[in-house]
């Protein structure tokens, strides 16, 4: 896809979501135009720029599992009660996140992106907060539709 700097509406939605959910971090991962790689294209509330260099592994970690399964995922107290190794969750490690809620972004019925909100403390995202994330994900799907290879 083209750089997200060229899509201020996308950035605006991520920033708004961070305020609405009162979380520490919002990340948006999308599949690259060429090849199957999925990368974090935008983050709000990030502590460093590690997310820019992370390539999401298919089926691994929060984003990889969401892309492979197409289902949302909740982590309430990382690294407790996780499936797989701690190192399978690089975005949680890179941003010191303890809790997260992440949903898939569907393009043409196929999961090709992830919207993640996270906190640097143990937390359970409420149903209202989860709904806000779901709604933002739908809006992003519409905004980014033209920029993802279908």
């Amino acid at each position, binding site marked *: 896809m083209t750089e997200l700097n060229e899509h201020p509406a996308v950035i605006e939605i991520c920033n708004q979501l961070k305020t609405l959910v009162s979380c520490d971090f919002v990340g948006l991962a999308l599949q690259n135009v060429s*090849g199957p790689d999925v990368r974090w294209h935008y983050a709000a509330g990030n502590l460093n720029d*590690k*997310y820019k260099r*992370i390539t999401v*592994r298919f089926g691994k970690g929060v984003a990889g599992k969401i892309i492979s399964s197409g289902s949302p995922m909740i982590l309430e107290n990382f690294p407790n009660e996780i499936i797989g190794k701690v190192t399978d969750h690089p975005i949680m490690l890179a941003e*010191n996140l303890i809790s997260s809620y992440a949903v898939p972004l569907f393009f*043409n019925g196929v999961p090709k992106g992830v919207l993640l909100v996270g906190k640097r403390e143990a937390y359970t995202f409420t149903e209202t907060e989860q709904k806000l994330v779901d709604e933002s994900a739908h809006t992003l799907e519409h905004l980014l539709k033209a920029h993802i290879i279908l």
Partner: protein
Amino acid sequence: MDLISSKQQISSYIIDSQEEEIKRIALELHEGVGQNLYSILTGLQFVETGIKEPHMKNHLREMSLLIEKTIQEIRLLSVELHPPALTTLGLLPAVKNYIKLYTSTFGILVDLESDGDERPIPERKRIAVFRVCQEALVNIAKYADTSEVKMNFYWNENELKINIHDFGKGFQPVEPKDHTSSSGLAAMKERMYLTGGEFTISSKIGEGTSIQISLPF
């Protein structure tokens, strides 16, 4: 004394057996499962050229992409288990390859410098040093809270020295008797000891952690 020597032999045997098994699984994944998936991918791409209906074409393309992702993951898993470069090209190329994978996995930049000419190392020792470097880097990703690592290889006449320094938060080194929190470090030390080498670690809160590995030729 004999008991200690016997224990070391048993440890070496277990480690060597594990490495052999890891190597076998890695090769099986790469040459077996990976190659079969690649054949399926090529077949699907061929079928796609003969299909006219756009929705079927699209469906096939998505299936191809899914297989492509799976092939990529199998390849990465295989390389993670046992990098082929370690056997074919040597320690330094294997570490360089691992660093690329490490940066794309954790986002941490590793600045690697090598002084002197690389010297041949027996495979068993090569694997041990590689595993200790790998473990050190994974520990940095888990605990150091840093974005950069400096790694230096010094090849001398008689030995190889490796320094790994993160610029992270550091920690208060624990007493050797506190096994629960330092078993990973103890295992790294033991592994180097079994190959005739040495492993030392130093850390200061706020200044990062340094690991020194040495291996005599």
